[in-house]
């Protein structure tokens, strides 16, 4: 009963906490709300007209939604790179970052699920996907696996921080033997969500561009580069806009993770390019389309030729110790790495899978405004959720939110 009361008090305090803040905070949340509302309007149009409101066709049947979904699964998985050292290896440096990382994972997963729903032709019958209520094609369909692992990961990433924050809120220490098993599970689970998502594409013999054994490992490498890169940027913002102290050491350590992952990612990219272009076969056509265009159609060329140099530049900047220790350069490198991987593992991976089509037809894909606004709306939703989670977590960690604190203060003044 006491626990329940404490929990209710925490929810109430958190709600109070996230609705109060500086002008910058309110402006930020207002902007996100506006973007979300526009996104919802765009989604309404899509519901009315059907998916013909998007740029997708029978030839290219997945587009911006699935691209962003794929990328964000990676961002979600990356939180694990911070969880493991902190909870399992007791590395103090990461302790400040880990709650932020898990908050980021929750936001990314909510965005993933939103992108999947946005992509469905029949969101009204999405309940067919719920295990035990609908019919679940398990273990045959990789999408069924994905539903399980994503929701499981979401559950883990909500419960662990919730437990820790709740203990801290009551002024108690979180018990190791309760959350460490969860943390270890989440480490394995994070690898699983990304590998399963890669298998979603990798298992299709119809699409040679995806049907290669490197796809899964490459997904992991790029995820562990882009995810922590985003975490560094978020930590930088938190350092600037709140009193939450994040030591330089923490950021430096995360930067090493980003660097190693980016290097591995680049090696795999070289391996892929070699396979596609050293002895090109019929199966290399998608890669040729992506990098050089086919039959004069080259919509993706400017994107991929932006992504590759950014990727290389970021990896070089991160590798050179002198650049990496300069925080301005580090933030810049993280930013361009994030953008590069978003392009490369988003529509740079999904769209060429469909081009050329099964019988060699080349039909290009251009997203419509409806699609773009829905996408932006979902990103705004993610940012909104993350801001709320991070603000509460920081409030509790800084001791601003404490159970019975108000009451004790009140009784003292009386």
């Amino acid at each position, binding site marked *: 009963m006491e626990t329940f009361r404490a929990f209710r008090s925490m929810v109430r305090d958190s709600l109070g906490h996230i609705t109060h803040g500086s002008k910058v905070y309110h402006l930020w949340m207002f902007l996100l709300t506006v973007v979300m509302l526009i996104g919802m309007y765009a989604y309404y149009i899509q519901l009315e007209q059907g998916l013909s409101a998007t740029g997708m066709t029978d030839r290219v049947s997945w587009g911006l939604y699935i691209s962003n979904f794929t990328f964000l699964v990676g961002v979600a998985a990356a939180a694990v790179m911070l969880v493991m050292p902190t909870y399992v290896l007791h590395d103090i440096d990461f302790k400040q970052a880990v709650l932020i990382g898990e908050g980021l994972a929750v936001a990314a997963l909510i965005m993933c699920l939103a992108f999947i729903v946005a992509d469905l032709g*029949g969101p009204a019958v999405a309940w067919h996907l719920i295990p*035990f*209520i609908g019919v679940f*094609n398990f273990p045959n369909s990789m999408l069924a696996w994905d539903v399980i692992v994503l929701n499981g990961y979401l559950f883990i990433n909500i419960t662990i921080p919730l437990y820790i924050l709740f203990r801290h809120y009551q002024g108690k220490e979180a018990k190791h033997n309760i959350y460490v098993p969860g943390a270890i599970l989440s480490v394995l689970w994070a690898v699983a969500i990304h590998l399963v998502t890669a298998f979603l594409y990798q298992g*299709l013999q119809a699409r040679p561009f995806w049907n290669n054994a490197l796809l899964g490992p490459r997904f992991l490498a790029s995820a562990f580069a882009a995810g922590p890169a985003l975490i560094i940027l978020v930590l930088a913002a938190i350092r600037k806009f709140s009193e939450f102290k994040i030591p330089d050491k923490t950021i430096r350590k995360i930067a090493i993770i980003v660097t190693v992952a980016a290097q591995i990612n680049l090696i795999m990219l070289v391996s892929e390019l070699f396979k596609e272009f050293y002895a090109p076969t019929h199966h290399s056509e998608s890669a040729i389309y992506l990098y050089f265009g086919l039959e004069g159609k080259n919509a993706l060329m400017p994107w991929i030729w932006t992504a590759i140099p950014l990727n290389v530049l970021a990896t070089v900047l991160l590798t050179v110790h002198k650049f990496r220790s300069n925080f301005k350069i580090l933030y810049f490198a993280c930013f361009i790495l994030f953008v590069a991987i978003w392009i490369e593992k988003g529509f740079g991976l999904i769209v060429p899978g469909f081009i050329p089509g099964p019988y060699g037809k080349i039909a290009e894909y251009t997203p419509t405004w409806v699609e773009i606004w829905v996408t932006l709306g979902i990103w705004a939703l993610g940012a909104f959720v993350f801001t709320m989670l991070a603000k509460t977590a920081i409030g509790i960690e800084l001791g601003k939110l404490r159970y019975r604190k108000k009451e004790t203060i009140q009784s003292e003044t009386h």
Partner: protein
Amino acid sequence: MEANKKWYQLDLGLGNKKTSQTTCGCGKSSGGCGSTKEDSRQATQSISAAEFDAAVEQEIMGDTAVAQTQKDGFQQVFDVKMDRRTAFRKLTASLLVGAGAVHTSCSITTSGEAKEKAQIDWEEQFKGNYKLMTQEEKQATVDRLVRSYQLRKKKNIKMTATDASKDVLFGYAFNISKCQGYMNCVSACVEENNQDRNSEMQYIRIHEMKDGQGFKFNEADDNYYHEVPAEGHFYMGTQCFHCDNPPCVNVCPVEATWREEDGLVVIDYDWCIGCRYCMAACPYDGRRFNWSKPEVPEEEVNKNQHYLGNRLRKKGVMEKCTFCVQRSRSGRDPACVEACPTGARIFGNLLDPNSTIRWVLENKQVFRLKEDLGTEPKFWYFMD
């Protein structure tokens, strides 16, 4: 299938022939007399349009008469034995949209028809997967769909839910030497299967290829508007190949698509959630998606329908060629076969040793597309 095969292989039992008792006019056990097929085809074709309409009418009257003696809506929902899953589903269902539907169906101000419509919509929204339904449930949903069309359009349709027959495995052969690219098959298919007219959805694609260059699909034109046969070209048709090991079926997260006992790969349009994973998995461009609400002018709607076949679809679901399940399961050829003026298309039962399709497989040099993918299509190409 051989025991040491690590991959899937289609088994037609070609090795162990048995003489079947099906009557062949000429008495040959193999060979191309084809008299059996011709007879049955003529028999079915001889029904005139008027006779057919009368039959449809009678069928429907019969159905309604039966329906009246059946349980009412309440009993249909609550007087059924259900397992935990079904019970839970129905409970969730009622929680989800209860308010709206209950409002319409319980309101005193709404008319009886509106109530019935709401009742049908309610049951249709929360029915189960067709594949897992009992015979009664299948019949119930078919009845609901027929009644719903009656209420909305004041027209009667005939919808069947015929299951696969034993000892039938449908197969298809395409004669490349005969096809002249007239595309009668394409238009017959669209009319037969009620495809969306606005987006001009077509299940069949005819690829026009240059003579002497082999099968170059990427250089072929599958959207031509000129007189055929064009000089120096040959034609090749593709559609769903009804693979025996279909990749599209494996990937579907909700089992909305499956391979029937007679080899047809079908979709439950009402169970499909529209994720389009099957579309990405199909190596033969065999699947189509309803990007908008499909529309067929009322007078062009083919009213002879099958639940898994040409019944009217809705926005946001997959569809595909079903070898015209509404025809093939009642002993007729698919519309494309019937419409082909050159005889390039051959359809039949692969398990019947006397069928034309078996004769083609045994006497012609046949091949299939992308055999290396292990999909085992039941669609063969051959030349004279």
